């Protein structure tokens, strides 16, 4: 292993600019002559728009334009769309309601943008927006997914009777019923997977520019996938043809899914830039982000797990209602279906599974993929069931899991997935050892002596990453292919540019992708630049989400590097007057096998361009190759997380006292970066379990709409995390990589809740287990005991 190659914890190349304040985020961009955009947003969950009073505002200082849904409709632009078509079990397609960027006559959630104000300065736009009043006729609203389908629930969209978007199912109902009929025992639980607000620290922003001379649009945008944004804005919305729209996602301050989607605000910015013939800038305030960025999770689930008399799992039945909010966001339909139910087999050999999912509209912010997207929800179902079952059966939760692990690979689950490799016992064993699982009873006694309730919980999760084989997802309804592209450009001086369709918003691609190239070409990492996030530079790409950029993005680079190497060998053969078949490339040197003839990579690069040693008839000059890589399978990162908590019965406060994660991500390019991804994911997962409550009141107001009420995880909430790995290389891609970005957020909630319920001695507590929720449970227990 070289100091900068695969497997080395190389310091990140991007960090110099970030630690010196020289990052370039969208909000940092100022275009000459730019105007500022501010939105008037709906204050109602559901209401008819009767009249917009904007006359006074439009005459206020600096105001350039006030644009409403009517103006937008006159522009004849298309609706925002959800790009994954799900069919209900009766064969009917999902009920996708139109989603105009600005509504004409009705608002459907608090925070929906209604009027766009463009002014010279940001404060003028804001002042004018505050001077606009809107007459509404309030309509009844529904926010709870469990109530959305009730016959008397308010109807949110005409196209979706009973607010039902689809009623979907996966698995074999008959086989599952038969399994349950044979069961010696069944564990049944009701779960709520709490709604979360993503809260990337950089809020969303857009700067849009229109050049009337060339009819060219440019959009700087906080995007995880600028090419997909361009495709949707062109093909579906029709703001500009694809070749006249350039989307640039510069440095992006975290995404976690929320910056995948195509939102109304950037679309309005583009349209406004053309309307007012000025560059238009929009920067979301944090309080807007709470009601404008797609939320995550929000499932209500009933799940049952059937066992035989020996504790082997026979079958699993799951019924989920998924809240998709007021409109179908870009990939929302796929999250509670193919990203969820396909993972319900967990790490276990489950012969029969049947899952039903109803997706519903409510008067809430749209819900879409958030770190883990469907897989945390699946893991929560499976791992809560395992823990509760072990307690019910009186067996060690670790042993019940071990008994049911999938042990032979490849393994076909009853829910589509074909696990290619793994060693679940290895990660379990290592995690138990690192967490000193055996010593827990002792620690529990010691804590009890201090008046504290101590609990331990496991989560043996699996996820499907490397998203995804295009043909497979196409057959499941995806509107796009999920390959990735790469181009490797070798310059005459031997330096290299790597163009990738992946996008980095914290993942460190500029470093890890360069490590791969350094490893393969034997050149210093400083001689490699990674280019991403600009549709004018990179031809196409699918972007970064779903822990796909290592497994898919780097595989594309690897494939392009194969082609570069092949071409370079031809050049080397001409240089050394040898046969191409005899050229060996190693450590940045081309040699002729069995001789001491050698040329460096730099010499080959130069000669590829000066082209003096071969004729045009023999070889094309230049050294630049591109590749598209379409995965042959998903990848299956898996592992075991162990959480230990201590609860103070006086206050209800839960402290995570130990957290241990052992993950199998396959081969690892940069262990330092991978550990960082795991840390971040775990803290988001613990945040979901213990802190982050997204609360709507009955009237559809978001009660937790600021950092005063939405409890973000802080440094003081956590102990140092213990993070380690096991390795079974992924056989499905050339680098053996599985993906690491979401593991923590997927595994942690179940581990934490298993620990909390262990400490409390009751399963009857929902996420987030805030001090109040825990204290309430303890009070209930005390009352019950007193009554007995």
């Amino acid at each position, binding site marked *: 292993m070289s100091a900068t190659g695969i497997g080395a914890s190389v310091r990140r190349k991007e960090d110099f600019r970030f630690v010196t304040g020289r990052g370039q985020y969208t909000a940092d961009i100022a275009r000459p002559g730019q105007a500022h955009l501010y939105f008037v947003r709906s204050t109602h969950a559901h209401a008819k728009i009767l009249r917009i009073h904007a006359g006074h505002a439009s005459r206020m200082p600096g105001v350039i334009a006030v644009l409403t849904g009517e103006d937008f409709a006159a522009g004849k632009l298309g609706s925002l769309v959800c790009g994954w078509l799900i069919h209900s079990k009766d064969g009917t397609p999902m009920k996708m309601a139109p989603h105009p960027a600005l509504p004409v006559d009705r608002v459907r959630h608090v925070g929906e943008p209604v009027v766009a104000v463009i002014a010279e300065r940001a404060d003028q736009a804001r002042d004018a927006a505050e001077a606009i009043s809107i007459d509404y006729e309030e309509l009844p609203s529904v926010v709870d997914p469990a109530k959305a389908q009730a016959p008397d629930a308010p109807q949110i969209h005409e196209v979706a009777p009973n607010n039902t978007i689809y009623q979907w199912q996966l698995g074999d109902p008959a086989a599952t019923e038969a399994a349950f009929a044979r069961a010696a025992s069944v564990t049944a639980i009701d779960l709520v997977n709490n709604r979360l607000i993503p809260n990337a*620290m950089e809020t969303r922003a857009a700067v849009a520019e229109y050049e009337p001379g060339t009819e060219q649009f440019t959009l700087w945008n906080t995007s995880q996938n600028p090419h997909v944004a361009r495709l949707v804005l062109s093909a579906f919305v029709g703001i500009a043809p694809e070749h006249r729209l350039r989307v640039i996602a510069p440095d992006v301050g975290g995404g976690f899914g929320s910056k995948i989607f195509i939102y109304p605000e950037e679309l309005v910015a583009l349209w406004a830039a053309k309307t007012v013939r000025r560059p238009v800038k929009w920067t979301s305030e944090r309080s807007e982000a709470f009601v404008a960025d797609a939320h995550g999770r929000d499932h209500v689930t009933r799940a049952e797990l059937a066992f035989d008399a020996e504790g082997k799992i026979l079958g699993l039945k799951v019924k989920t209602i998924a809240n998709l909010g007021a409109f179908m966001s870009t990939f929302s339909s796929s999250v509670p279906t193919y990203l969820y139910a396909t993972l319900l087999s967990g790490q276990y050999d489950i012969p029969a599974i049947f899952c039903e999912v109803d997706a519903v509209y409510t008067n809430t912010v749209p819900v879409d993929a958030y770190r883990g997207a469907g897989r945390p929800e699946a893991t929560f179902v499976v791992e809560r069931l395992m823990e509760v079952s072990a307690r019910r059966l009186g067996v060690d939760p670790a042993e019940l899991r071990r008994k049911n692990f999938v042990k032979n690979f490849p393994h076909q689950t009853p829910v589509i997935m074909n696990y290619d490799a793994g060693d679940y016992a290895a990660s379990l064993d290592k995690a138990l050892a690192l967490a000193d699982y055996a010593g827990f009873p002792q620690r529990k006694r010691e804590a009890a002596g201090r008046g504290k309730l101590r609990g331990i919980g496991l989560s043996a999760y699996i996820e499907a990453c490397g998203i995804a084989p295009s043909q497979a997802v196409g057959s499941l309804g995806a509107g796009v292919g999920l390959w990735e592209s790469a181009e490797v450009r070798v310059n005459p001086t031997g330096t290299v540019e790597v163009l990738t369709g992946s996008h980095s918003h914290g993942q460190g691609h500029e470093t890890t992708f360069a490590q791969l190239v350094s490893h393969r070409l034997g050149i210093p990492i400083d001689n490699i630049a990674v280019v991403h996030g600009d549709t004018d530079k990179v031809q196409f790409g699918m972007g970064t989400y779903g822990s796909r950029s290592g497994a898919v993005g780097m595989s594309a680079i690897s494939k392009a590097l194969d082609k570069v190497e092949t071409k370079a060998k031809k050049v080397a053969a001409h240089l050394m007057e040898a046969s191409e078949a005899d050229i060996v490339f190693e450590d940045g040197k081309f040699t002729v096998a069995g001789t001491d003839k050698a040329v460096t990579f730099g010499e080959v690069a130069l000669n590829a361009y000066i082209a003096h040693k071969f004729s045009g008839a023999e070889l094309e000059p230049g050294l630049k190759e591109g590749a598209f890589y379409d995965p042959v399978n998903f990848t299956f990162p898996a592992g075991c997380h162990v959480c230990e908590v201590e609860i103070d019965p006086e206050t209800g406060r839960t402290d995570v006292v130990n957290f241990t994660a052992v993950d199998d991500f396959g081969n690892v390019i940069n262990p330092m970066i991978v550990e960082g991804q795991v840390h971040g994911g775990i803290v988001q997962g613990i945040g979901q379990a213990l802190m982050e409550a997204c609360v709507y009141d009955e009237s559809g107001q978001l009660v937790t709409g600021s950092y005063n009420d939405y409890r973000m995880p802080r*440094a003081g909430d956590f102990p140092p995390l213990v993070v380690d790995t096991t390795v079974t290389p992924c056989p499905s891609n050339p680098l053996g990589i599985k993906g690491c970005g979401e593991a923590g957020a997927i595994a942690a909630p179940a581990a934490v809740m298993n620990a909390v319920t262990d400490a409390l001695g009751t399963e009857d507590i929902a996420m987030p287990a805030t001090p109040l929720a825990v204290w309430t449970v303890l009070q209930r227990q005390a009352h019950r005991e007193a009554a007995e």
Partner: protein
Amino acid sequence: MPAVSMTVNGTPVTADIDPRTLLVQFLREHLRLTGTHVGCDTSQCGACVVHVNGEAVKSCAMLAVQADGAEVLTIEGVAQGDTLHPMQEAFRDNHGLQCGFCTPGMIMTALDMVRRLGPVLDDHTIREELEGNLCRCTGYHNIVKSIAAGARAMAADDTPRRAAAE
């Protein structure tokens, strides 16, 4: 429009501004020092932390006119040319940042922590001191490690620095 004058990263600046202008807006929009970030509108995230007369403040919670006559240090003034400050170096060495958005505020807060509490900072102290700084990427683990290492490195470092960045 009132005029404000202050010294920012060692350079005197004067401007006529709207009295409502926040210090963070003055830095970002008037001076184009965009390393200081805005992550919230309730003074809770700490992305905007700068030093005013040597002390850490949230520049979103202060009017520019309140900094009239002050010495202001932003993240852009912490390194000496291309030589990173030991705290910046520590963040890079310990992978104390991912997307980098919270990082300027974290580093400015860390420098203030060392100024007040000295170079030996334990895990618990650092975590408590980060009460006013949010990060959504790192899970804080490596930020805490970076600050402890940076504080130690500052004690061993004898490079002369601009007063507020010591």
